[in-house]
């Protein structure tokens, strides 16, 4: 009986698949390596050894904080983002990874999305200053890598952030 069901479901899936005409093919997926097990991130991990990066009053600040449920860069962080953007524009071989984070409230995978939104906000701000796309990568850890433990507003505020990580 169970087998019969499984066969039925399997054939249903096949039928469902057949119904999708080639002309209705979905938009292309986000990368070009879709039939190869897609290892472009793995290649990325070769050159992502963390480095000390530049120093200086603004450049030594590597964490951008965000308000609750927001992904726009606050006024008090604009100068820090601008300083990193200028440094990266002047050093086109330097790469950074933008690590987006969320506080612990809500659903984990949705929070991955929120962290990514923050990382992308910083990425766009840096790109605006003439930095090459290839110098920037993003990763979102959502709520999985909090800066501090705790379930209060203070902890949440410190955990909603983007970390700028300089790579070797």
């Amino acid at each position: 009986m169970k087998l019969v069901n499984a066969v039925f479901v399997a054939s249903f899936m096949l039928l469902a698949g057949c119904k999708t005409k080639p002309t209705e093919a979905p938009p292309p997926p986000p990368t070009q390596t879709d039939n190869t097990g897609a290892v472009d991130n793995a290649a990325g991990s070769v050159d992502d050894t963390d480095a000390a990066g530049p120093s200086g009053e603004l450049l030594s600040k590597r964490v951008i904080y965000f308000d609750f449920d927001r992904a726009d860069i606050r006024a008090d962080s604009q100068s820090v983002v601008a300083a990193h953007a200028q440094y990266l524009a002047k050093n086109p071989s330097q790469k950074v990874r933008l690590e987006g984070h969320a506080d612990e409230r809500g659903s984990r995978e949705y929070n991955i999305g929120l962290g990514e939104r923050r990382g992308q906000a910083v990425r766009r701000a840096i790109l605006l200053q003439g930095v090459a796309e290839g110098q920037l990568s993003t990763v979102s850890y959502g709520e999985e890598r909090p800066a501090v433990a705790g379930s209060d507003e203070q902890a949440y505020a410190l955990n909603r952030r983007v970390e700028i990580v300089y790579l070797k």
Partner: protein
Amino acid sequence: MNVRMKKLATALLLAALGISGPALAQLQVTVTSGVTDPIPIAIVPFSRAVPADGGLDVAEVIQRDLESSGRFKGMARTDMLTKPTTFAEVDVAGWKQQRNDYVVVGRVTALASGDLTIESEVVNVLNGLRVAGPRWTGKPAFLRNGSHRIADAIYEKIIGVRGAFATRIAYISVDGQPPKQRFQLIVADADGFNPQVILEKDRPLMSPSWSPDGTMLAYVSFETKVSAVYVQNIYTKQRSRVSARAGINGAPTWSPDGKKLALTLSGSNGNLDIYLLDLTSQQLTRLTDDPGIDTEASFAPDGSAVYFTSDRPGSPQVYRVGLGGNERPKRVTFTGSYNARPRVSPDGKQLAVLTLDEGAYRVALQDLASGTVSVLSKGRQDESPSFAPNGAMVILAGRERGRGVLQTVSIDGQTSLRLNADAGEVREPVWGPYQK
């Protein structure tokens, strides 16, 4: 309510824990509100097969399983006037006088082959008939699993729905303080016993999902500092990376036929959408295309549709998209400002979601036909609901005193069983399918 029985049940549980002492060492029953009319049942201690049974109290395991469902109330052993082990020895009138509906008696015996057999007999005290006689034979190491299977059979005979006690759960365990933390992917029995580490990493592991046959887990690992989706055999521990594309690789869930994964990809531009990945051909099919966050896909049990979280209306809500080809997603949740991480019940009739309820994150059930919503959990930060394969219970994660804990809740919200970890915290439980 019989408070004494509750206390005894808890005491029995703690005693059971002393015997096996695995990583999950604190397990307690909490009846969160009055159980409506649990069926009174007396599970008489079974005759033992010493020493082959390893000291396992089979009747106690069965009693705890049945009570954890909220549908049964076991009689305290101290109230039992006799301790029969066969149907012939059962004084039906006496058990009836002590207000039982059912009596279960049984025997554990060692076979010449070295295997053990559990023979049990279920007696309906109201009519004096032996209504079932579930048996199990297997290796002594699996006696506990055999006990769960007897409990499954008793549950099915009396309730009319297959029991889900002989099933397994997977979850993530986290030790240490950020940023130095250790993440483990663990598989354990549904009652928290026999935890086994499938994978251990010093970077986050998240979003485990069972294959429909219960042999594989899909999950997200950040072990290369960026996200990738892996599938791993829980027996051989062999694993393969199935998606490591630029940007986010997240939220994998298996299709009911086991051939595909639904997952979330973002590309380097950071727009999260849902895709289907054919595990054989590696072919990707895009399911959603929206500038908002689309994630947390979950298949309808017949494989005809996918439910997912989308914040396209401005806040996260659950949408459904049919897989017939070229279908437009339709919004499913309308109660409240936050509904995420949908999971469909095994009968396809209900949706478990994470909802914002009076300022707290709780698990709610939504009836898909009527739209009626009932809040199931009572914590402040509950998450990750997952249905038992019989649909009678939901396992979820919550926070208590700053630590992640797991609990099972009956779908009427009345009975909950909490599973606390020794150290660190546990999160993201997923209930596995029926075992063969």
